[in-house]
Protein backbone atom coordinates (compact mmCIF):
# COMPACT_ATOMS: atom_id res chain seq x y z
CA UNK A 1 0.00 0.00 0.00
CA UNK A 2 1.27 3.43 -0.89
CA UNK A 3 2.25 5.82 1.88
CA UNK A 4 -0.36 8.29 0.76
CA UNK A 5 -3.23 5.79 0.71
CA UNK A 6 -2.10 4.45 4.04
CA UNK A 7 -2.11 7.94 5.46
CA UNK A 8 -5.72 8.62 4.50
CA UNK A 9 -6.92 5.25 5.72
CA UNK A 10 -5.13 5.62 9.00
CA UNK A 11 -5.84 9.31 9.58
CA UNK A 12 -9.15 9.12 11.52
CA UNK A 13 -7.97 6.55 14.03
CA UNK A 14 -4.61 8.27 14.33
CA UNK A 15 -6.28 11.60 15.05
CA UNK A 16 -8.46 10.08 17.74
CA UNK A 17 -5.49 8.45 19.42
CA UNK A 18 -3.24 11.48 19.07
CA UNK A 19 -5.73 13.89 20.55
CA UNK A 20 -7.06 11.77 23.36
CA UNK A 21 -4.16 9.48 24.25
CA UNK A 22 -0.86 10.79 22.91
CA UNK A 23 -1.38 14.41 23.94
CA UNK A 24 -2.53 13.51 27.44
CA UNK A 25 0.44 11.14 27.63
CA UNK A 26 2.78 14.00 26.83
CA UNK A 27 1.13 16.14 29.48
CA UNK A 28 1.33 13.28 31.98
CA UNK A 29 5.03 12.87 31.35
CA UNK A 30 5.61 16.62 31.61
CA UNK A 31 3.58 16.85 34.77
CA UNK A 32 5.65 14.12 36.37
CA UNK A 33 8.81 16.17 35.85
CA UNK A 34 7.56 19.27 37.64
CA UNK A 35 6.60 19.95 41.22
CA UNK A 36 4.41 22.76 42.47
CA UNK A 37 5.97 26.10 43.31
CA UNK A 38 7.22 26.81 46.72
CA UNK A 39 4.16 27.86 48.68
CA UNK A 40 4.52 31.02 50.69
CA UNK A 41 2.73 30.80 54.01
CA UNK A 42 1.25 33.39 56.28
CA UNK A 43 -0.53 32.98 59.55
CA UNK A 44 -3.99 34.47 59.61
CA UNK A 45 -7.05 34.43 61.80
CA UNK A 46 -9.79 32.09 60.56
CA UNK A 47 -13.26 32.37 61.99
CA UNK A 48 -16.26 30.09 61.62
CA UNK A 49 -19.15 28.54 63.50
CA UNK A 50 -16.78 27.23 66.16
CA UNK A 51 -14.91 30.41 66.93
CA UNK A 52 -11.67 31.92 65.70
CA UNK A 53 -8.24 30.40 65.45
CA UNK A 54 -4.78 31.34 64.16
CA UNK A 55 -4.01 29.11 61.22
CA UNK A 56 -1.46 28.84 58.46
CA UNK A 57 -2.68 29.59 54.98
CA UNK A 58 -1.11 30.14 51.58
CA UNK A 59 -0.16 33.70 50.78
CA UNK A 60 -1.91 33.80 47.42
CA UNK A 61 -0.32 37.04 46.23
CA UNK A 62 3.22 35.94 46.91
CA UNK A 63 2.57 32.50 45.45
CA UNK A 64 0.82 33.93 42.41
CA UNK A 65 3.93 35.94 41.57
CA UNK A 66 6.01 32.78 41.63
CA UNK A 67 3.39 30.98 39.63
CA UNK A 68 3.23 33.64 36.90
CA UNK A 69 6.96 33.55 36.52
CA UNK A 70 7.01 29.85 35.72
CA UNK A 71 3.52 28.59 34.96
CA UNK A 72 4.59 24.95 34.73
CA UNK A 73 5.87 24.79 38.28
CA UNK A 74 9.34 23.98 39.45
CA UNK A 75 11.49 21.68 37.34
CA UNK A 76 12.09 18.55 39.36
CA UNK A 77 13.62 16.18 36.84
CA UNK A 78 13.49 12.65 38.13
CA UNK A 79 13.06 13.77 41.72
CA UNK A 80 9.45 12.59 41.98
CA UNK A 81 10.33 9.23 40.47
CA UNK A 82 13.01 8.78 43.10
CA UNK A 83 11.00 9.87 46.14
CA UNK A 84 9.55 7.59 48.78
CA UNK A 85 6.16 7.37 47.12
CA UNK A 86 7.70 5.91 43.96
CA UNK A 87 11.03 4.18 43.48
CA UNK A 88 12.26 5.26 46.94
CA UNK A 89 15.86 5.07 45.79
CA UNK A 90 17.50 6.53 48.87
CA UNK A 91 15.29 4.59 51.22
CA UNK A 92 15.99 1.31 49.43
CA UNK A 93 19.71 2.04 49.55
CA UNK A 94 19.46 2.70 53.27
CA UNK A 95 17.50 -0.50 53.76
CA UNK A 96 20.17 -2.42 51.83
CA UNK A 97 22.91 -1.05 54.09
CA UNK A 98 21.06 -1.60 57.32
CA UNK A 99 19.78 -5.12 56.73
CA UNK A 100 21.96 -8.18 57.15
CA UNK A 101 19.84 -10.69 55.28
CA UNK A 102 17.74 -10.79 52.15
CA UNK A 103 14.62 -11.42 54.20
CA UNK A 104 15.16 -8.33 56.31
CA UNK A 105 15.90 -6.27 53.20
CA UNK A 106 12.77 -7.45 51.41
CA UNK A 107 10.55 -6.86 54.39
CA UNK A 108 11.88 -3.32 54.65
CA UNK A 109 11.43 -2.69 50.95
CA UNK A 110 7.91 -4.06 50.95
CA UNK A 111 7.07 -1.32 53.42
CA UNK A 112 7.36 1.32 50.69
CA UNK A 113 4.05 1.90 48.93
CA UNK A 114 5.36 1.44 45.39
CA UNK A 115 7.02 -1.87 46.11
CA UNK A 116 4.17 -3.27 48.16
CA UNK A 117 1.78 -2.35 45.37
CA UNK A 118 4.15 -3.86 42.82
CA UNK A 119 4.32 -7.09 44.81
CA UNK A 120 0.56 -7.49 44.72
CA UNK A 121 0.23 -6.31 41.13
CA UNK A 122 2.82 -8.78 39.85
CA UNK A 123 1.48 -11.68 41.90
CA UNK A 124 -2.01 -10.91 40.69
CA UNK A 125 -0.90 -10.72 37.09
CA UNK A 126 1.19 -13.87 37.09
CA UNK A 127 -1.45 -15.93 38.89
CA UNK A 128 -4.57 -14.66 37.18
CA UNK A 129 -3.36 -14.55 33.56
CA UNK A 130 -2.43 -18.24 33.16
CA UNK A 131 -5.37 -19.48 35.23
CA UNK A 132 -7.70 -17.40 33.17
CA UNK A 133 -6.27 -18.75 29.93
CA UNK A 134 -6.49 -22.35 31.11
CA UNK A 135 -10.02 -21.94 32.43
CA UNK A 136 -11.13 -20.11 29.32
CA UNK A 137 -9.68 -22.85 27.12
CA UNK A 138 -11.32 -25.62 29.14
CA UNK A 139 -14.70 -23.91 29.01
CA UNK A 140 -14.33 -23.33 25.28
CA UNK A 141 -13.59 -27.01 24.64
CA UNK A 142 -16.45 -28.04 26.93
CA UNK A 143 -18.98 -25.69 25.40
CA UNK A 144 -17.88 -26.65 21.91
CA UNK A 145 -18.96 -30.23 22.52
CA UNK A 146 -22.45 -29.25 23.66
CA UNK A 147 -25.56 -29.59 21.57
CA UNK A 148 -25.94 -26.52 19.37
CA UNK A 149 -29.33 -25.55 20.80
CA UNK A 150 -27.76 -25.20 24.21
CA UNK A 151 -24.82 -23.14 23.05
CA UNK A 152 -26.50 -19.73 22.87
CA UNK A 153 -27.79 -19.89 26.40
CA UNK A 154 -24.52 -21.22 27.73
CA UNK A 155 -22.58 -18.46 26.00
CA UNK A 156 -24.80 -15.81 27.55
CA UNK A 157 -24.42 -17.17 31.06
CA UNK A 158 -20.70 -17.61 30.54
CA UNK A 159 -20.41 -13.96 29.59
CA UNK A 160 -22.17 -12.75 32.73
CA UNK A 161 -19.07 -12.34 34.91
CA UNK A 162 -17.58 -10.06 32.28
CA UNK A 163 -20.80 -8.17 31.58
CA UNK A 164 -21.87 -7.21 35.09
CA UNK A 165 -19.80 -4.10 35.72
CA UNK A 166 -16.91 -4.76 38.07
CA UNK A 167 -17.93 -2.00 40.42
CA UNK A 168 -21.38 -3.39 41.06
CA UNK A 169 -20.37 -7.01 40.63
CA UNK A 170 -17.84 -6.70 43.39
CA UNK A 171 -20.31 -4.87 45.61
CA UNK A 172 -22.68 -7.81 45.53
CA UNK A 173 -19.87 -10.34 45.84
CA UNK A 174 -18.46 -8.28 48.70
CA UNK A 175 -21.64 -8.94 50.58
CA UNK A 176 -21.80 -12.60 49.63
CA UNK A 177 -18.34 -13.23 51.03
CA UNK A 178 -18.99 -11.32 54.24
CA UNK A 179 -18.64 -13.68 57.18
CA UNK A 180 -22.42 -13.57 57.42
CA UNK A 181 -23.12 -13.77 53.67
CA UNK A 182 -23.90 -16.93 51.77
CA UNK A 183 -20.40 -17.62 50.45
CA UNK A 184 -18.65 -16.51 53.65
CA UNK A 185 -20.86 -18.81 55.72
CA UNK A 186 -20.30 -21.58 53.21
CA UNK A 187 -16.54 -21.23 53.51
CA UNK A 188 -16.74 -21.17 57.31
CA UNK A 189 -18.78 -24.36 57.19
CA UNK A 190 -16.36 -25.92 54.74
CA UNK A 191 -13.32 -25.24 56.91
CA UNK A 192 -15.26 -25.74 60.11
CA UNK A 193 -14.04 -22.45 61.53
CA UNK A 194 -16.80 -20.07 62.65
CA UNK A 195 -14.39 -17.15 63.01
CA UNK A 196 -12.93 -17.32 59.53
CA UNK A 197 -13.27 -14.02 57.71
CA UNK A 198 -12.06 -13.51 54.18
CA UNK A 199 -11.81 -9.77 54.64
CA UNK A 200 -9.73 -9.78 57.81
CA UNK A 201 -6.60 -11.57 56.63
CA UNK A 202 -4.14 -10.42 54.02
CA UNK A 203 -3.59 -13.89 52.55
CA UNK A 204 -7.28 -14.62 52.18
CA UNK A 205 -7.92 -11.18 50.71
CA UNK A 206 -5.27 -11.80 48.06
CA UNK A 207 -6.80 -15.18 47.21
CA UNK A 208 -10.24 -13.65 47.09
CA UNK A 209 -9.11 -10.89 44.73
CA UNK A 210 -7.40 -13.37 42.47
CA UNK A 211 -10.38 -15.71 42.38
CA UNK A 212 -12.48 -12.71 41.45
CA UNK A 213 -9.94 -11.75 38.79
CA UNK A 214 -10.07 -15.18 37.18
CA UNK A 215 -13.84 -15.31 37.41
CA UNK A 216 -14.18 -11.90 35.86
CA UNK A 217 -11.84 -12.32 32.92
CA UNK A 218 -12.21 -16.01 32.04
CA UNK A 219 -15.18 -15.20 29.75
CA UNK A 220 -12.96 -13.04 27.55
CA UNK A 221 -10.51 -15.90 27.04
CA UNK A 222 -13.44 -18.24 26.54
CA UNK A 223 -15.06 -16.21 23.77
CA UNK A 224 -11.81 -15.82 21.86
CA UNK A 225 -10.82 -19.47 22.16
CA UNK A 226 -14.30 -20.71 21.41
CA UNK A 227 -14.28 -18.77 18.18
CA UNK A 228 -10.82 -20.09 17.40
CA UNK A 229 -12.09 -23.63 17.82
CA UNK A 230 -14.65 -23.06 15.09
CA UNK A 231 -11.86 -22.69 12.57
CA UNK A 232 -9.95 -25.86 13.36
CA UNK A 233 -8.62 -27.22 10.09
CA UNK A 234 -10.84 -30.26 9.53
CA UNK A 235 -8.36 -32.12 7.36
CA UNK A 236 -5.48 -31.98 9.84
CA UNK A 237 -7.78 -33.22 12.54
CA UNK A 238 -9.10 -36.04 10.43
CA UNK A 239 -5.69 -37.22 9.39
CA UNK A 240 -4.65 -37.17 13.02
CA UNK A 241 -7.66 -39.31 13.83
CA UNK A 242 -6.81 -41.73 11.03
CA UNK A 243 -3.30 -41.99 12.40
CA UNK A 244 -4.88 -43.15 15.64
CA UNK A 245 -4.12 -40.11 17.70
CA UNK A 246 -5.83 -40.16 21.08
CA UNK A 247 -8.15 -37.35 22.07
CA UNK A 248 -5.45 -35.86 24.28
CA UNK A 249 -2.91 -36.05 21.45
CA UNK A 250 -5.35 -34.31 19.13
CA UNK A 251 -5.67 -31.46 21.61
CA UNK A 252 -1.95 -31.39 22.26
CA UNK A 253 -0.73 -31.52 18.65
CA UNK A 254 -3.55 -30.05 16.61
CA UNK A 255 -5.82 -27.81 18.68
CA UNK A 256 -3.26 -26.07 20.88
CA UNK A 257 -0.85 -25.18 18.04
CA UNK A 258 -3.81 -23.88 16.08
CA UNK A 259 -4.89 -21.66 18.96
CA UNK A 260 -1.36 -20.48 19.82
CA UNK A 261 -1.64 -17.04 18.16
CA UNK A 262 -4.85 -16.54 20.07
CA UNK A 263 -3.14 -17.45 23.31
CA UNK A 264 -0.57 -14.76 22.60
CA UNK A 265 -3.32 -12.25 21.92
CA UNK A 266 -5.28 -13.12 25.06
CA UNK A 267 -2.13 -13.20 27.17
CA UNK A 268 -1.09 -9.79 25.90
CA UNK A 269 -4.42 -8.17 26.69
CA UNK A 270 -4.87 -9.99 29.98
CA UNK A 271 -1.41 -9.22 31.28
CA UNK A 272 -1.96 -5.59 30.52
CA UNK A 273 -5.38 -5.47 32.16
CA UNK A 274 -4.26 -7.44 35.18
CA UNK A 275 -1.25 -5.20 35.61
CA UNK A 276 -3.66 -2.31 35.89
CA UNK A 277 -5.89 -4.10 38.42
CA UNK A 278 -7.92 -1.52 40.29
CA UNK A 279 -11.67 -1.92 40.49
CA UNK A 280 -11.80 -5.04 42.67
CA UNK A 281 -9.53 -3.39 45.24
CA UNK A 282 -11.92 -0.48 45.55
CA UNK A 283 -15.02 -2.65 45.25
CA UNK A 284 -13.85 -5.04 47.97
CA UNK A 285 -12.48 -2.23 50.20
CA UNK A 286 -9.29 -4.25 50.19
CA UNK A 287 -6.71 -1.47 50.29
CA UNK A 288 -5.60 -2.39 53.81
CA UNK A 289 -4.33 -5.70 52.49
CA UNK A 290 -3.62 -5.23 48.83
CA UNK A 291 -2.78 -2.19 46.75
CA UNK A 292 -1.88 -1.91 43.09
CA UNK A 293 -0.19 0.73 40.99
CA UNK A 294 -3.52 1.95 39.66
CA UNK A 295 -4.83 2.12 43.20
CA UNK A 296 -1.93 4.40 44.13
CA UNK A 297 -2.93 6.72 41.30
CA UNK A 298 -6.50 6.64 42.53
CA UNK A 299 -5.36 7.41 46.07
CA UNK A 300 -3.15 10.29 44.95
CA UNK A 301 -5.96 11.86 42.96
CA UNK A 302 -8.69 11.15 45.48
CA UNK A 303 -7.49 13.07 48.54
CA UNK A 304 -8.51 16.56 49.62
CA UNK A 305 -5.36 17.83 47.92
CA UNK A 306 -4.79 16.12 44.62
CA UNK A 307 -1.20 15.02 43.99
CA UNK A 308 -1.10 15.37 40.23
CA UNK A 309 2.64 14.98 39.79
CA UNK A 310 2.79 11.90 42.00
CA UNK A 311 -0.09 10.32 40.08
CA UNK A 312 1.54 11.21 36.77
CA UNK A 313 4.84 9.62 37.83
CA UNK A 314 3.07 6.42 38.89
CA UNK A 315 1.24 6.36 35.56
CA UNK A 316 4.50 6.63 33.65
CA UNK A 317 6.00 3.87 35.78
CA UNK A 318 2.95 1.71 35.02
CA UNK A 319 3.42 2.20 31.30
CA UNK A 320 7.11 1.35 31.60
CA UNK A 321 6.21 -1.71 33.65
CA UNK A 322 3.78 -2.91 30.99
CA UNK A 323 6.37 -2.31 28.28
CA UNK A 324 8.96 -4.38 30.14
CA UNK A 325 6.54 -7.22 30.80
CA UNK A 326 5.32 -7.35 27.25
CA UNK A 327 8.75 -6.98 25.67
CA UNK A 328 9.27 -10.73 25.05
CA UNK A 329 5.99 -10.86 23.15
CA UNK A 330 6.86 -7.71 21.28
CA UNK A 331 10.28 -8.96 20.27
CA UNK A 332 8.65 -12.07 18.89
CA UNK A 333 6.11 -10.02 16.98
CA UNK A 334 8.94 -7.91 15.57
CA UNK A 335 10.74 -11.02 14.37
CA UNK A 336 7.57 -12.43 12.80
CA UNK A 337 6.99 -9.13 11.16
CA UNK A 338 10.47 -8.99 9.69
CA UNK A 339 10.19 -12.51 8.39
CA UNK A 340 6.99 -11.64 6.60
CA UNK A 341 8.34 -8.57 4.84
Amino acid sequence: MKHKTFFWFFLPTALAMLLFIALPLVSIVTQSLYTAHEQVFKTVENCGPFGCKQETTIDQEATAALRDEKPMGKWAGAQIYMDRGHLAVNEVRAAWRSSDSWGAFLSQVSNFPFYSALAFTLTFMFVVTPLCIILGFAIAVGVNSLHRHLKGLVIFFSLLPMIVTPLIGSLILFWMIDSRGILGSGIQWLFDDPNLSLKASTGLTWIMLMVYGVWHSAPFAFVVFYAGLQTLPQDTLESAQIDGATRWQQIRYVVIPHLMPLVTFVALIQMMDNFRVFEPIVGFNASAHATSLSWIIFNDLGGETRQLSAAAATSVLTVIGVAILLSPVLVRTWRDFNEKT
Partner: protein
Amino acid sequence: MSLSSRKQPLGLRIFSVSFVAVWLILAAFPFVWTLWGSFKVELDFFSKADWTNAITGARTIAEKGTAFTADGYRGAWVQEEFWKAAINTAIVCLFVVCTSLTIGTLGGYALSRSGYRYTFWLLLAALIFRAIPQLALVSGYLLPFFQWNLWGILPTTIIVLVAINQPFTLWMLHSFFQKIPKDLDESAKVDGCTQFQAFRLVIIPVMWPGVITTGLFSFLLAYNDFQVTSMLLAKENQTMVPKIASFLGTTQTEGNVMFAVASVVSATAPLFILVMFFQRQIVSGLTAGAVKG
Protein backbone atom coordinates in the same frame (compact mmCIF):
# COMPACT_ATOMS: atom_id res chain seq x y z
CA MET B 1 -17.64 -30.78 14.43
CA SER B 2 -14.03 -31.41 15.25
CA LEU B 3 -13.43 -32.99 18.60
CA SER B 4 -17.05 -33.15 19.50
CA SER B 5 -19.63 -35.81 19.97
CA ARG B 6 -18.61 -38.15 17.18
CA LYS B 7 -16.78 -40.75 19.15
CA GLN B 8 -16.67 -39.21 22.58
CA PRO B 9 -16.63 -41.90 25.24
CA LEU B 10 -19.37 -41.67 27.84
CA GLY B 11 -17.00 -40.95 30.74
CA LEU B 12 -15.38 -38.03 28.99
CA ARG B 13 -18.73 -36.75 27.89
CA ILE B 14 -20.10 -36.78 31.43
CA PHE B 15 -16.94 -35.08 32.64
CA SER B 16 -17.12 -32.38 30.01
CA VAL B 17 -20.83 -31.68 30.54
CA SER B 18 -20.46 -31.55 34.29
CA PHE B 19 -17.46 -29.25 33.96
CA VAL B 20 -19.50 -26.84 31.88
CA ALA B 21 -22.35 -27.17 34.37
CA VAL B 22 -20.06 -26.28 37.27
CA TRP B 23 -18.73 -23.30 35.35
CA LEU B 24 -22.25 -22.14 34.56
CA ILE B 25 -23.16 -22.27 38.22
CA LEU B 26 -20.04 -20.29 39.13
CA ALA B 27 -20.66 -17.75 36.38
CA ALA B 28 -24.37 -17.29 36.83
CA PHE B 29 -24.85 -17.83 40.54
CA PRO B 30 -24.07 -14.29 41.72
CA PHE B 31 -26.34 -12.94 39.02
CA VAL B 32 -29.21 -15.30 39.80
CA TRP B 33 -28.75 -14.47 43.47
CA THR B 34 -28.98 -10.78 42.62
CA LEU B 35 -32.04 -11.32 40.45
CA TRP B 36 -33.77 -13.14 43.31
CA GLY B 37 -32.62 -10.61 45.89
CA SER B 38 -33.73 -7.62 43.84
CA PHE B 39 -37.30 -8.45 44.85
CA LYS B 40 -36.48 -8.30 48.57
CA VAL B 41 -35.85 -5.42 50.95
CA GLU B 42 -32.33 -4.36 51.79
CA LEU B 43 -32.26 -5.98 55.20
CA ASP B 44 -32.96 -9.36 53.63
CA PHE B 45 -30.65 -9.20 50.66
CA PHE B 46 -27.79 -7.68 52.63
CA SER B 47 -28.67 -9.43 55.85
CA LYS B 48 -26.26 -8.89 58.71
CA ALA B 49 -28.15 -11.46 60.74
CA ASP B 50 -28.68 -14.54 58.63
CA TRP B 51 -28.06 -15.01 54.92
CA THR B 52 -31.00 -17.37 54.56
CA ASN B 53 -33.21 -14.29 54.96
CA ALA B 54 -32.29 -13.44 51.40
CA ILE B 55 -33.95 -16.65 50.28
CA THR B 56 -36.98 -16.69 52.55
CA GLY B 57 -37.50 -12.92 52.60
CA ALA B 58 -38.38 -12.83 56.32
CA ARG B 59 -38.05 -9.06 56.61
CA THR B 60 -39.70 -8.48 53.25
CA ILE B 61 -42.77 -10.31 54.51
CA ALA B 62 -42.70 -8.33 57.74
CA GLU B 63 -42.39 -4.99 55.96
CA LYS B 64 -44.33 -5.45 52.75
CA GLY B 65 -46.72 -8.30 53.47
CA THR B 66 -45.48 -10.53 50.67
CA ALA B 67 -42.20 -12.27 50.01
CA PHE B 68 -41.61 -10.33 46.81
CA THR B 69 -41.61 -6.60 46.28
CA ALA B 70 -40.97 -4.60 43.15
CA ASP B 71 -40.15 -1.48 45.15
CA GLY B 72 -36.54 -1.51 44.03
CA TYR B 73 -37.58 -1.45 40.38
CA ARG B 74 -40.29 1.11 40.93
CA GLY B 75 -37.92 3.35 42.84
CA ALA B 76 -35.18 3.10 40.25
CA TRP B 77 -37.25 3.42 37.10
CA VAL B 78 -40.07 5.73 38.17
CA GLN B 79 -38.79 7.75 41.10
CA GLU B 80 -35.15 8.08 40.09
CA GLU B 81 -35.82 8.09 36.35
CA PHE B 82 -33.42 5.34 35.50
CA TRP B 83 -34.90 5.24 32.01
CA LYS B 84 -33.11 8.47 31.19
CA ALA B 85 -29.82 6.82 32.00
CA ALA B 86 -30.87 3.84 29.89
CA ILE B 87 -31.50 6.11 26.91
CA ASN B 88 -28.14 7.82 27.41
CA THR B 89 -26.41 4.46 27.54
CA ALA B 90 -28.15 3.44 24.34
CA ILE B 91 -26.96 6.61 22.59
CA VAL B 92 -23.41 6.27 23.89
CA CYS B 93 -23.19 2.60 22.93
CA LEU B 94 -24.62 3.12 19.46
CA PHE B 95 -22.24 5.94 18.58
CA VAL B 96 -19.21 4.40 20.23
CA VAL B 97 -19.67 1.11 18.40
CA CYS B 98 -20.36 2.74 15.03
CA THR B 99 -17.57 5.29 15.20
CA SER B 100 -14.96 3.00 16.59
CA LEU B 101 -15.74 0.30 14.04
CA THR B 102 -15.72 2.76 11.15
CA ILE B 103 -12.37 4.32 11.89
CA GLY B 104 -11.03 1.07 13.30
CA THR B 105 -11.76 -0.94 10.15
CA LEU B 106 -10.11 1.68 7.96
CA GLY B 107 -7.05 1.81 10.19
CA GLY B 108 -6.86 -1.92 10.79
CA TYR B 109 -7.20 -2.63 7.11
CA ALA B 110 -4.45 -0.17 6.24
CA LEU B 111 -2.15 -1.69 8.86
CA SER B 112 -2.72 -5.17 7.51
CA ARG B 113 -2.06 -4.19 3.89
CA SER B 114 1.01 -2.03 4.29
CA GLY B 115 4.28 -3.87 4.50
CA TYR B 116 6.35 -0.96 5.73
CA ARG B 117 8.15 -1.04 9.06
CA TYR B 118 6.14 1.82 10.47
CA THR B 119 3.06 -0.35 10.73
CA PHE B 120 4.85 -2.35 13.42
CA TRP B 121 5.76 0.79 15.32
CA LEU B 122 2.21 2.06 15.02
CA LEU B 123 0.89 -1.17 16.46
CA LEU B 124 3.46 -0.95 19.21
CA ALA B 125 2.47 2.62 19.99
CA ALA B 126 -1.15 1.54 20.15
CA LEU B 127 -0.19 -1.11 22.68
CA ILE B 128 1.67 1.41 24.82
CA PHE B 129 -1.31 3.74 24.61
CA ARG B 130 -3.51 0.99 25.92
CA ALA B 131 -1.23 0.56 28.93
CA ILE B 132 -1.84 4.05 30.29
CA PRO B 133 -4.03 3.85 33.38
CA GLN B 134 -7.41 5.32 32.46
CA LEU B 135 -7.62 7.22 35.71
CA ALA B 136 -4.61 9.29 34.79
CA LEU B 137 -5.95 9.98 31.31
CA VAL B 138 -9.34 11.07 32.57
CA SER B 139 -7.97 13.39 35.21
CA GLY B 140 -5.87 14.98 32.48
CA TYR B 141 -8.97 15.64 30.36
CA LEU B 142 -10.85 17.50 33.07
CA LEU B 143 -9.18 20.87 32.89
CA PRO B 144 -9.17 21.36 29.09
CA PHE B 145 -12.71 20.02 28.80
CA PHE B 146 -13.95 22.44 31.43
CA GLN B 147 -12.08 25.27 29.79
CA TRP B 148 -13.47 24.60 26.34
CA ASN B 149 -16.94 23.92 27.66
CA LEU B 150 -16.88 20.35 26.44
CA TRP B 151 -17.36 18.78 29.82
CA GLY B 152 -20.53 16.96 30.77
CA ILE B 153 -22.01 16.29 27.35
CA LEU B 154 -22.47 12.96 25.60
CA PRO B 155 -20.41 13.63 22.42
CA THR B 156 -17.24 14.27 24.44
CA THR B 157 -17.65 11.04 26.32
CA ILE B 158 -18.36 9.16 23.11
CA ILE B 159 -15.19 10.42 21.44
CA VAL B 160 -13.09 9.70 24.52
CA LEU B 161 -14.44 6.16 24.74
CA VAL B 162 -13.81 5.63 21.03
CA ALA B 163 -10.23 6.87 21.36
CA ILE B 164 -9.49 4.84 24.47
CA ASN B 165 -10.82 1.74 22.78
CA GLN B 166 -9.00 2.28 19.46
CA PRO B 167 -5.81 0.38 20.35
CA PHE B 168 -7.73 -2.79 21.18
CA THR B 169 -9.96 -2.41 18.11
CA LEU B 170 -6.95 -1.85 15.87
CA TRP B 171 -5.11 -4.93 17.15
CA MET B 172 -8.13 -7.13 16.83
CA LEU B 173 -9.14 -5.91 13.37
CA HIS B 174 -5.57 -5.89 12.13
CA SER B 175 -5.15 -9.57 12.89
CA PHE B 176 -8.56 -10.21 11.41
CA PHE B 177 -7.77 -8.49 8.11
CA GLN B 178 -4.50 -10.38 7.88
CA LYS B 179 -6.53 -13.57 7.57
CA ILE B 180 -8.40 -12.22 4.56
CA PRO B 181 -6.26 -13.25 1.60
CA LYS B 182 -4.42 -10.32 0.06
CA ASP B 183 -5.11 -11.69 -3.42
CA LEU B 184 -8.72 -10.56 -3.08
CA ASP B 185 -8.06 -6.85 -3.08
CA GLU B 186 -4.85 -7.12 -5.11
CA SER B 187 -6.77 -8.61 -8.01
CA ALA B 188 -9.45 -5.94 -7.65
CA LYS B 189 -6.71 -3.34 -7.94
CA VAL B 190 -5.32 -5.04 -11.00
CA ASP B 191 -8.81 -4.71 -12.46
CA GLY B 192 -8.48 -0.94 -12.05
CA CYS B 193 -10.01 -0.28 -8.65
CA THR B 194 -8.46 2.25 -6.30
CA GLN B 195 -7.47 0.97 -2.90
CA PHE B 196 -10.62 2.42 -1.39
CA GLN B 197 -12.81 0.86 -4.05
CA ALA B 198 -11.14 -2.47 -3.46
CA PHE B 199 -11.83 -2.10 0.22
CA ARG B 200 -15.42 -1.10 -0.35
CA LEU B 201 -16.33 -3.64 -2.99
CA VAL B 202 -14.24 -6.64 -2.04
CA ILE B 203 -13.30 -6.46 1.60
CA ILE B 204 -16.42 -4.98 3.19
CA PRO B 205 -18.66 -7.85 2.10
CA VAL B 206 -16.42 -10.44 3.76
CA MET B 207 -15.37 -8.56 6.85
CA TRP B 208 -18.61 -8.59 8.87
CA PRO B 209 -17.96 -11.58 11.11
CA GLY B 210 -14.75 -10.13 12.57
CA VAL B 211 -16.21 -6.67 12.76
CA ILE B 212 -19.19 -7.89 14.73
CA THR B 213 -17.00 -9.60 17.28
CA THR B 214 -14.85 -6.52 17.66
CA GLY B 215 -18.07 -4.55 17.93
CA LEU B 216 -19.20 -6.75 20.79
CA PHE B 217 -16.12 -5.86 22.78
CA SER B 218 -16.49 -2.15 21.97
CA PHE B 219 -20.08 -2.38 23.04
CA LEU B 220 -19.21 -4.01 26.33
CA LEU B 221 -16.58 -1.37 26.99
CA ALA B 222 -19.00 1.49 26.38
CA TYR B 223 -21.76 -0.25 28.28
CA ASN B 224 -19.69 -1.03 31.35
CA ASP B 225 -17.43 1.95 31.52
CA PHE B 226 -17.33 3.70 34.86
CA GLN B 227 -14.05 5.58 35.05
CA VAL B 228 -14.71 7.78 32.03
CA THR B 229 -18.46 8.24 32.28
CA SER B 230 -18.49 8.99 36.00
CA MET B 231 -15.94 11.77 35.63
CA LEU B 232 -16.93 13.31 32.31
CA LEU B 233 -20.72 13.34 32.35
CA ALA B 234 -22.94 15.85 34.08
CA LYS B 235 -25.72 14.51 36.24
CA GLU B 236 -28.43 14.95 33.62
CA ASN B 237 -26.42 13.07 30.99
CA GLN B 238 -25.40 10.15 33.15
CA THR B 239 -25.32 6.67 31.70
CA MET B 240 -26.48 3.62 33.59
CA VAL B 241 -23.32 2.59 35.42
CA PRO B 242 -22.53 5.94 37.07
CA LYS B 243 -26.23 6.30 37.80
CA ILE B 244 -26.19 2.97 39.62
CA ALA B 245 -23.10 4.05 41.52
CA SER B 246 -24.86 7.28 42.48
CA PHE B 247 -27.62 5.25 44.12
CA LEU B 248 -24.96 3.99 46.48
CA GLY B 249 -23.08 7.22 47.09
CA THR B 250 -21.07 8.04 50.17
CA THR B 251 -24.07 8.16 52.44
CA GLN B 252 -26.39 5.33 51.64
CA THR B 253 -29.96 6.36 52.20
CA GLU B 254 -32.45 3.71 53.07
CA GLY B 255 -33.82 1.84 50.09
CA ASN B 256 -31.42 3.35 47.57
CA VAL B 257 -29.19 0.31 47.77
CA MET B 258 -32.04 -1.80 46.48
CA PHE B 259 -32.54 0.68 43.63
CA ALA B 260 -28.96 -0.10 42.68
CA VAL B 261 -29.55 -3.85 42.84
CA ALA B 262 -32.71 -3.59 40.76
CA SER B 263 -30.92 -1.43 38.20
CA VAL B 264 -28.05 -3.88 37.95
CA VAL B 265 -30.54 -6.56 37.02
CA SER B 266 -32.32 -4.23 34.61
CA ALA B 267 -29.04 -3.27 32.98
CA THR B 268 -28.25 -6.89 32.24
CA ALA B 269 -31.49 -7.62 30.42
CA PRO B 270 -30.64 -5.84 27.13
CA LEU B 271 -27.37 -7.74 27.02
CA PHE B 272 -29.26 -10.99 27.23
CA ILE B 273 -31.31 -10.04 24.19
CA LEU B 274 -28.22 -8.82 22.38
CA VAL B 275 -26.23 -12.00 22.95
CA MET B 276 -29.15 -14.21 21.98
CA PHE B 277 -29.65 -12.20 18.84
CA PHE B 278 -26.01 -12.04 17.80
CA GLN B 279 -24.69 -15.32 19.18
CA ARG B 280 -24.29 -16.94 15.78
CA GLN B 281 -22.55 -13.91 14.35
CA ILE B 282 -20.32 -13.62 17.39
CA VAL B 283 -19.12 -17.14 16.96
CA SER B 284 -18.94 -17.17 13.22
CA GLY B 285 -17.33 -13.75 13.39
CA LEU B 286 -14.38 -14.92 15.31
CA THR B 287 -14.52 -18.03 13.21
CA ALA B 288 -13.94 -16.28 10.02
CA GLY B 289 -11.01 -14.49 11.25
CA ALA B 290 -10.12 -12.12 13.90
CA VAL B 291 -8.10 -14.51 15.55
CA LYS B 292 -7.72 -17.38 13.28
CA GLY B 293 -4.04 -18.00 13.68
